[in-house]
């Protein structure tokens, strides 16, 4: 029983990592109806930028803000530079370009900052909560995730540009007919996704340590969380991410023989099973429509 509770708390702590990343994934999905396979690498690269700024002596929160701003700009630049030319290319070609970006960022980060792991500071201090099951940083990460979630809600719900982005994503042709510059909305989506990714990266790095491959597997868990929660729902993404963390821990602890060796496959299996029953995820929106 004690172990069960410990594993759940520890699962929430790990799940916060996935939830963070899942938010960035949902964001880009809103903008381009796609999973961006380079998202994790972009977040990793942003985190390295932050690390570099810190190494140059920039105070933490200033480095934080600068990194988010740079990542936002970087996301927009990538969209305008790379994907705008591919507007009419088939979707699968876009996926291939994601893969190309993945390779580029991974390789560049290794080239510039090498592959050794680097400690990344936490703004929330060190120590132990709940008997060490959760560090103050992990608790702080959950708070930051919820904060980002709230900001997103406000942005999409109450701002004109948020509304325009939702419209552009839902129906680009109609959006153009009301004068929305759909291309820029997509670029803005990229910018926001990569800014959120940067936040995620800076929150994740203190836990798993910074290195060029840090996001490769976290991205998959993030995908799983986002899909489980429903790709159209930021709240769902956070819940999905936390759920993946818990499921994974329980599978590893309680499934005999194969459990510890197959934590990830078991978690994926659970998710696919959920999807078979609820194809749009736990909180994904079904679009009601009368014909």
């Amino acid at each position, binding site marked *: 029983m004690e172990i069960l509770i410990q594993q759940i708390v520890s699962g929430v702590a790990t799940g916060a990592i996935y939830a963070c990343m899942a938010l960035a994934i949902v964001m880009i999905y809103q903008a381009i109806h796609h999973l961006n396979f380079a998202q994790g690498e972009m977040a990793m690269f942003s985190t390295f930028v932050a690390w570099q700024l810190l190494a140059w002596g920039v105070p933490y929160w200033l480095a934080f803000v600068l990194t988010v701003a740079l990542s936002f700009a970087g996301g927009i630049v990538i969209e305008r530079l790379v994907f705008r030319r591919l507007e009419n290319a088939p979707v699968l070609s876009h996926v291939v370009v994601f893969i190309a970006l993945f390779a580029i960022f991974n390789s560049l980060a290794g080239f510039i900052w090498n592959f050794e792991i680097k400690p990344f500071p936490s703004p929330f201090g060190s120590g132990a909560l709940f008997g060490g099951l959760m560090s103050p940083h992990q608790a702080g990460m959950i708070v930051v995730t919820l904060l980002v979630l709230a900001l997103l809600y406000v942005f999409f719900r109450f701002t004109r540009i948020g*509304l325009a982005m*939702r419209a552009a994503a839902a129906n680009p042709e*109609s959006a*153009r*007919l009301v*004068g*929305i510059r759909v291309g820029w909305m997509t670029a803005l989506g990229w910018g926001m996704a990569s800014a959120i990714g940067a936040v995620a990266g800076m929150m994740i790095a203190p836990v798993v340590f910074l290195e060029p491959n840090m996001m490769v597997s976290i991205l998959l868990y993030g995908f799983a969380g986002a899909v489980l929660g429903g790709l159209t729902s930021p709240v769902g993404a956070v819940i999905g991410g936390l759920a993946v963390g818990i499921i994974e821990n329980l599978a590893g602890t309680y499934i005999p023989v194969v459990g510890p060796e197959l934590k990830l496959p078991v978690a994926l299996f659970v998710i696919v099973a959920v999807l078979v029953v609820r194809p749009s995820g736990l909180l994904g929106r079904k679009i009601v*429509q009368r014909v």
Partner: protein
Amino acid sequence: MKPLLSVRGLEASYGDLKVLRGLDFTIAEGGVTALLGANGAGKTTTLRALCGMIPRSGEVEFDGRPISRARTEDIVRLGIAHVPEGRGTFFNLTVEENLELGAMSRPARREVADDVARIYGYFPRLKERRRQQAGTLSGGEQQMLAIGRALMLRPRLMLLDEPSFGLAPLVVEEVFRILAHVRETMKVSMLLVEQNANFALSLADHAYLLETGEIAVAGSAEEIRNDESIRNAYLGY
């Protein structure tokens, strides 16, 4: 008087198939022009080409400005509102959000609320359903929403693509009554594409008949309405 919109040699094609073969026509400021023709004559394509939604060639001037190379969103920003075929509803947004989107390209935010109120004046049904997801509206309500959204732009020219399509006759009458009212109160010019020639000609001042991508007949609405041979040959009633 100088026309609001003038079109010369407008061509457009889908792949190898040429759908518009050099259209020439004009639309007068403040008037309603009907574009009639059988299925596949190129009516919808004409509207889409005017708005830059498909590749096209030829010359189009709006209020003296060339727009034949401009992008859709820039054309819209000049004051051309397109009520598209299928109504272009944002299904998962609320009715009110749909209306607000219509004013998206106008800088003055303050007037938006007033305009929304005015639209609700035209379409009380929409007001009742303002918090509802637009996808749950009936066909007639969606058509009203589409017209309302277009009006939120405070357009100088409205392009209407078959507003009667798929609606019950009573609803069609209501829609056209509202269009007539709008025309009076807001001084909007309209280019109306319709299969239902009867309704269209009742509203229009001027009409063009389109046949396989070319203009076959042009004249005042009254002339066409009264010309039995044209009615028989093109309009089938």
